[in-house]
């Protein structure tokens, strides 16, 4: 063989008798102090989570903040996305010292004695001491699960951020009455982010004994806040992995670092009779791909079909090394969802691209400060099943 011939030139379409097995038998493993590969690719687990008749999601609020420019300016001014969110000096943890100079302890000290029943007074103090309190909104959703028997059960996913805004939204949708009447069984937190979690006192004002589910990964400040807000009910920390709730409903905790010093996201999976998998997310920081593939690998759902999805959507936590895949439109299309309600951190441009691509997006009404009909906005409802 001529020494000048490049393998790249003649290997295309070639075949050889040497098998992979032969070369691989004593490969890289010989360099490991612990040689065996313990983790072989698993079969689909197909865990039964039961089945339900339908799921209805009411968007209490998806407008986490009202002005992008203000929010980005705050984040940059405080030092960027790697800064601990409790240090930003955002409401409710304001200490009056300005952007980036806050702390949980100093912030809570100002208002603790007023939580959770005297929120108006607390908010007055917060307004005086924190940065851009008027920009705070929040993310919260009411999830109603209809059991096969026809019985309906209610849950909250996240509560939002601003006490003022969240109370307004709760009253608008009647969540306050539902909480007072103990119609809502539990409050799930998707993750510890300011716009999903810090509005907790608003829920506790009406039902301080509500059961709370948090993903494993909350930091000390978060755990302390739950106490300081006056929570008197059960606190359940869901470990990474699958957590069955009621027939047809499960939550799943993904271990993932998130911006602003947060870790872990809990998302909800439902198995809706005759329809298939329905997912409800807060931000899906783990990415839609990991989210959908995890469902496929772990749980059993009707017809093996991805039926519906609601919430904020991200493709993945990373920038793909092949830019043509950095396209949420393509990624979402891979799963064939039949009913899509998106909002919050999806990005309006993205939502519009979904619609332009012909995806089955359920549009909203752009009311109550939601900006665009492409989003399933504040006060809008989506039903699956």
């Amino acid at each position, binding site marked *: 063989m001529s020494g000048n011939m490049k393998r790249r030139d003649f290997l295309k379409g070639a075949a050889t008798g040497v098998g992979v097995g032969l070369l691989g038998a*004593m490969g890289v493993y010989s360099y490991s102090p612990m040689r065996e590969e313990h*983790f072989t690719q698993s079969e689909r687990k197909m865990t039964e989570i039961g089945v339900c008749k339908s799921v209805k999601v009411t968007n209490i609020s998806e407008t986490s903040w009202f002005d992008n420019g203000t929010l980005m300016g705050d984040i940059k001014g405080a030092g960027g996305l790697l800064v601990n969110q409790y240090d930003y000096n955002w409401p409710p943890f304001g200490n009056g010292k300005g952007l980036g100079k806050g702390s949980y302890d100093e912030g809570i000290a100002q208002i603790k004695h007023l939580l959770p029943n005297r929120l108006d007074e607390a908010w007055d103090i917060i307004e005086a001491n924190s940065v851009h309190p008027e920009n705070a909104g929040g993310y919260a959703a009411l999830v109603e699960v209809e059991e096969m028997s026809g019985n309906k059960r209610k849950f909250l996913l996240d509560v939002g951020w601003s006490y003022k805004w969240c109370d307004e939204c709760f009253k608008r949708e009647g969540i306050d009455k539902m909480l007072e009447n103990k119609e809502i069984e539990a409050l799930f937190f998707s993750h510890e982010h300011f716009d999903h979690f810090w509005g907790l006192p608003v829920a506790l004002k009406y039902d301080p004994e509500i059961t709370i589910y948090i993903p494993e990964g909350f930091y*000390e400040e978060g755990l302390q806040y739950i106490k300081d807000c006056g929570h008197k009910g059960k606190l359940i920390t869901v470990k990474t992995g699958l957590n069955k709730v009621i027939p047809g409903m499960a939550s799943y905790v993904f271990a993932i670092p998130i911006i602003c010093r947060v870790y872990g996201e809990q998302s909800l999976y439902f198995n809706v009779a005759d329809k298939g998998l329905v997912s409800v997310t807060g931000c899906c920081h783990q990415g839609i791909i990991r989210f*959908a593939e995890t469902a496929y690998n772990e749980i059993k759902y009707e017809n093996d079909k991805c039926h519906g999805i609601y919430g904020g959507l991200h493709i*993945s936590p990373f*920038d793909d*090394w092949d830019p043509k895949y*950095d396209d949420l439109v393509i990624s979402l299309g891979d799963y064939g969802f039949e009913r899509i309600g998106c909002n919050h951190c999806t*990005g309006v441009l993205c939502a519009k691209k979904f619609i332009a691509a012909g995806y089955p997006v359920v549009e909203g009404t752009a009311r109550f400060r939601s900006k665009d009909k492409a989003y399933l906005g504040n006060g809008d409802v989506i039903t699956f099943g």
Partner: protein
Amino acid sequence: MPLTLNTLLPPALLDDPVQAAAELPRALMTRANFIPGVRHRLGWRGVRDCAKGKGGLTVRVADMRGVYGLHLLNTGDAGETGLATFAISYFPAPDEELVESFSIQAGIVAQTEDYLGRVREFTLHDDLRVLFGIAVLEAHFKSDDAGVALALTAPEQDTVVAIDGVTVQTPTGPVQAVDPGGQDQHLPAWDIALPLFSALAASASYCLGVPPQSLERKSREGMRRVYGGESGLRSEGAPDVRDIRLGLGWGMSVPRNMDMHTTEVVWEAPAPLPEEYKDAPWRSADIPGAANSLDKRTMGITDKPRLIVLTGFLGSGKTTFLARFIEEQAAKNGFVAVVQNEIGKKGLDGKLLGQSYAVTEVDEGCVCCTLAGSLRSALSGILSEFQPDFVVLETTGLANPANLLSEIADLDDMLEFASVTTVLDAACAPRALAEHEVARNQIQLADVLLLNKTDLVAEADLIDLETRVRQLNPTADLHRISHGDVHSTVLYGVNFRKFLKRPAPLLAPMGQHATHGDDGIQNAIIEFDTPLNRESFSEGISAFPSEVLRAKGVVRFRDAEEPEVFQYVPGHHALTPAEEGQDGCFLVIIGQDAPRIAEDFRVAVGA
């Protein structure tokens, strides 16, 4: 020095050292990739989770054309330290030189159509993991008295000898790819694995906030694999090559590996770092400029960056102006991407790596790139990687303005067009204008004209120049400056909302006195006395011939109270609400044959 571990992993994981070790590389990469400017400097060029397999990911690293794979082999503990071991694979780009060093079988796989698609989910494909494995990564985590260690183990050369040689059946007949007794594979595994390890170690220093305090490099006699003849596959000692293990420890010493006998380098802080590691990327925890570049996608913010096309002859002071602009934006926590239109040397290097742009510099406030491919593909990459607030497209020539403008119009799904800004050297401009069509084009198409170096020119000459410039462009904002010194709000308004100036009285209205275009590009202006019918206006605009390079104006419509600002480039036009106090109702048309086009338009809208 205490490690900032809690920003990397939450309290729940910190109590479980085995879990923490298993999560460590992914946590380091995730956090290091949050910030576009930082991730670029740490060497990351894109990461992708293997969603379908368990715990694998693929990543590209600076200066390496292929894709690395990382997947978990096993976990275990040694007392209070958790250990997780990962396999590192390298999937060469099908056309890169390294393909020659991998085994023939690997080379064949790398040439297949679905190669990169399968690489993206390599944990599902046994053949990929086996053929392209090159090294092993250990992650150690110590709970008590927190510490983290990373170690890379790989052979200097991973050699496989084929006793019987290898004959390959190609579509054009058999080829003896390897002679009997020759090397099927001869892979510099250590050299290939090191860039990934360095990026990971640099990320560890960055995330933990401190550089490593201990280093250990050990080796042992290497092995090589031989197959064929009667004995199948066997390993034999290869005395002339070594297996190397390099370990770094943060807050702890590097854990021992009993198989590695020969110590080559050992170091513990505070002793001075050995010479060969003085420039290692993990040496410092300090990557400045994390605040301004923000991955807006993580917040769902899809606002488009603003595009400024900056033009001017060499020596006009363009660069000084640009530097001031960047500084100004950085002070407001903005991030600017500067793209140079000319393909410079660096741009060509970029082309070699198969990219459409090459980054020449990244810092606190900006990233500078040169083009190596099409404008659209370069901008797409730059926007995705850096998420800038502004893009400044710097170009010295506007030799073909129609082309550039319509290319830019085409980008309006990615960028919000803000301005064509031209910088002129007041002293040299008169001659340039007289002699160069390019200079005239630059002025005609600008929205903002900066007469720079005015401190060097007499008042009378300045007035003459301004008159000449106004003949070429009646509506642009004209500013006299020196040393490139002008505040961007003066030029572009607060939030880029600006008046559109009425044409100066130099030019008679009604398109009758078009400037004599020495080269065909003319200006014509139409003034409207009464509000227009919106539909006729739209139809008139759609009927603009391709000769129209720009059009802009302030228009009042019958169906609206307030006037609107109109901007047109070929293929794209927009009507936006005018600023308060905007007066006038006029349209300027720039291009060849402008007077006739203007007249046709005036008739079409019945004005």
